[in-house]
């Protein structure tokens, strides 16, 4: 049983609320959202409780439109088998209609398969692999917040443009790291740069990256690409500073929680890509202030905020179809979501492509100097924006079977 304490409390809280509604008004339809996320592991701050809260905020913001919404919570512990078993149980026994957030790449690929088999709906936010809308795509799955292609294009291309034409990669030795290295490497060579080499570091379990950093420096590359995430990236950046490594680092997947953990002193000047920043515009600020009231002291990064955007769009689709229709078929529900343009405070206006890829701009940020920052969480300067239609891999290159040639 993989439910965490938090999950049990969450479900326990949801059930009496729904019961009260039922007795007050006869037979209102109920749709159920399952938030599958990392509540106890290395990616807890990147997604985790804040992603749960942003889902709840979407339900609250949507308001009462004639049907009730229940939110269930589960912890996948970054293990594909645990994640897919829990989701199977949600779909079969608990009547969950849609799973949101849905974890890191390996979990995402597993859950996507379950959604297809059960004809239910799934929208991933935290996973990175672009295969979700490529060779592994299906009619029951959407990929919402970002992917390895977006990161590669935005951060990778920007570094090459700034003169970083030879790269050395430090790659987390699993599916995500390999995909990211591949995607960034393609951009580097397309832009006329070269990949001089790389090391694959055992994942998880590597805490000391200094040897790899020294190897990277000895290679003479102009950029060290960090194809890892979370604590691995944090350790790389810390130790590069410690060993006086002057070669610029490219944090290929970094979130605001990583910057917060490292401190501006260590992170200043780093370039990174997110599809959301709390202080980007009036709408993101309004959203972030509402979320802050629910969960103070932390600002959401893109993977925390993504479930807000996807949940809101799901609820709009349910309203358009009618709850009874929406609950019948996951594929029909996803098709309805693809038909409707998206619009929310997190990503602004966007669309969903035939292959399941949600389209919105990608923002290239540079981490501020401590002297520029006005306080906690004031961390980014906007360097550039990749427009929505260019930020993601063109559909024809993804080899998704849903896309007719």
């Amino acid at each position, binding site marked *: 049983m993989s439910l965490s304490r938090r999950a049990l409390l969450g479900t326990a809280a949801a059930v009496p609320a729904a019961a009260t509604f039922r007795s007050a008004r006869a037979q209102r339809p109920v749709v159920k959202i399952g938030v599958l996320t990392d509540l*106890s592991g*290395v990616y807890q701050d*990147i997604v985790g409780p804040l992603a749960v809260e942003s889902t709840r905020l979407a339900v609250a913001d949507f308001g009462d439109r004639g049907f009730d919404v229940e939110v269930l919570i589960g912890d996948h512990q970054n293990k594909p088998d645990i994640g897919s078993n829990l989701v199977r149980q949600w779909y079969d026994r608990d009547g969950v209609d849609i799973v949101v957030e849905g974890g890191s790449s390996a979990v995402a690929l597993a859950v996507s398969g379950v959604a297809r088999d059960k004809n239910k709906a799934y929208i991933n936010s935290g996973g990175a692999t672009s295969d979700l809308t490529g060779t592994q795509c299906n009619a029951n799955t959407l990929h919402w917040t970002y992917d390895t292609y977006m990161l590669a294009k935005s951060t990778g291309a920007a570094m090459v443009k700034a003169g970083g034409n030879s790269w050395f990669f430090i790659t987390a030795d699993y599916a995500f790291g390999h995909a990211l290295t591949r995607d960034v490497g393609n951009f580097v060579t397309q832009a006329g740069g070269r990949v001089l080499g790389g090391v694959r570091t055992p994942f998880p*379990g590597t805490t*000391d990256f200094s040897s790899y950093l020294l190897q990277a420096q000895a290679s003479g590359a102009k950029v060290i690409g960090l194809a890892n995430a*979370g*604590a691995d990236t944090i350790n790389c950046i810390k*130790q590069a500073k410690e060993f006086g490594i002057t070669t610029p680092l490219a944090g290929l997947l970094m979130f605001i929680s990583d910057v917060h953990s490292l401190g501006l002193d260590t992170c200043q000047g780093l370039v990174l890509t997110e599809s959301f920043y709390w202080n980007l515009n009036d709408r993101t600020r309004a959203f972030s202030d509402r979320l802050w009231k629910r969960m103070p002291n932390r600002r959401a990064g893109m993977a925390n905020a993504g479930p807000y955007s996807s949940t809101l769009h799901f609820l709009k689709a349910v309203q358009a179809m009618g709850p009874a229709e929406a609950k019948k078929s996951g594929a029909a529900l996803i098709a309805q979501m693809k038909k409707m343009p998206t619009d929310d405070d997190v990503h602004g206006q966007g669309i969903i492509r035939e292959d399941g890829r949600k389209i919105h701009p990608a923002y290239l940020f540079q981490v501020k100097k401590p002297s520029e920052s006005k306080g906690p969480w004031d961390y980014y300067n906007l360097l550039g924006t990749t427009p929505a239609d260019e930020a993601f891999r063109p559909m024809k290159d993804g080899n998704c079977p849903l896309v007719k040639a």
Partner: protein
Amino acid sequence: MMMILGIPAPLLFGQLLLGVVNGAFYALMSLGLAIIFGMLNIVNFAHGALFMLGAFTAWGLLNYAGIGYWWALLLAPLIVGAFGVLLERLFISKLYKLDHLYGLLLTFGLALILEGLVRNYYGSSGLPYRIPSQLQGAQNLGFMIMPNYRGWVVLAAIVMCVITWLVIEKTSIGAKLRAATENAPLVQSFGINVPLMITLTYGAGVALAAFAGVLAAPIYSVNPNMGANFIIVVFAVVVIGGMGSILGSIVTGFGLGIVEGLTRVFYPEGSATVIFVVMVIVLLARPAGLFGRAH
């Protein structure tokens, strides 16, 4: 440039030195484990979590009380050591008469609880802890840049290992402790308070883990999983060195740090595995470990 086995010599020397630095952590951690196993016969799986608590205590001392690194180096081991004493009295002392497996399960459970609690309050991405101002900067050794702090870690670890070894092998307290391990009732009959001694030994082993935790805080991210990453390797070190052997764990700690460092140059993907390969070979050839005595 001079090449050794196809690798530029400066890079190779750099990796050897880094291996020694990592070995220092392995030695300190496995030393505490070896003492606890040698004296209490408890396989202390909570060691990694207590190492993590040491780092968090240093962070807490700085952020809540304004107490800096040097005092933390003294206070954190004392605080965490006292906590260890509490754990020993409340839980572990109930298990001495039972099989090893029960101690292992209990301490493993304690580790999960401690890590879960810290994660709940401080998140998983870790907290920043600065290198003390006196140890900032680095020395250019010609073949690599050696951060002053890493040098300090090696020095501190060696000094601590030597002190611990001297206390156990050369003092009367150490002699009583070793005697109590061999035959507790006999030593007790001489009027020595053996349960107290065992409790304090556990506290001391835990304090060593916390000391290593404070040393690690400025280098690694202070996060709830920092000990979990270490503990498996450290157990392998203890097994290779010979369960309960003090000298074995020190020598093996440094030695395996170097082996691991070299693997990182020649075959990085295998660097997390190489220690276990060594463990398998050693266990096949010498089941009691390199320095262990066969029972």
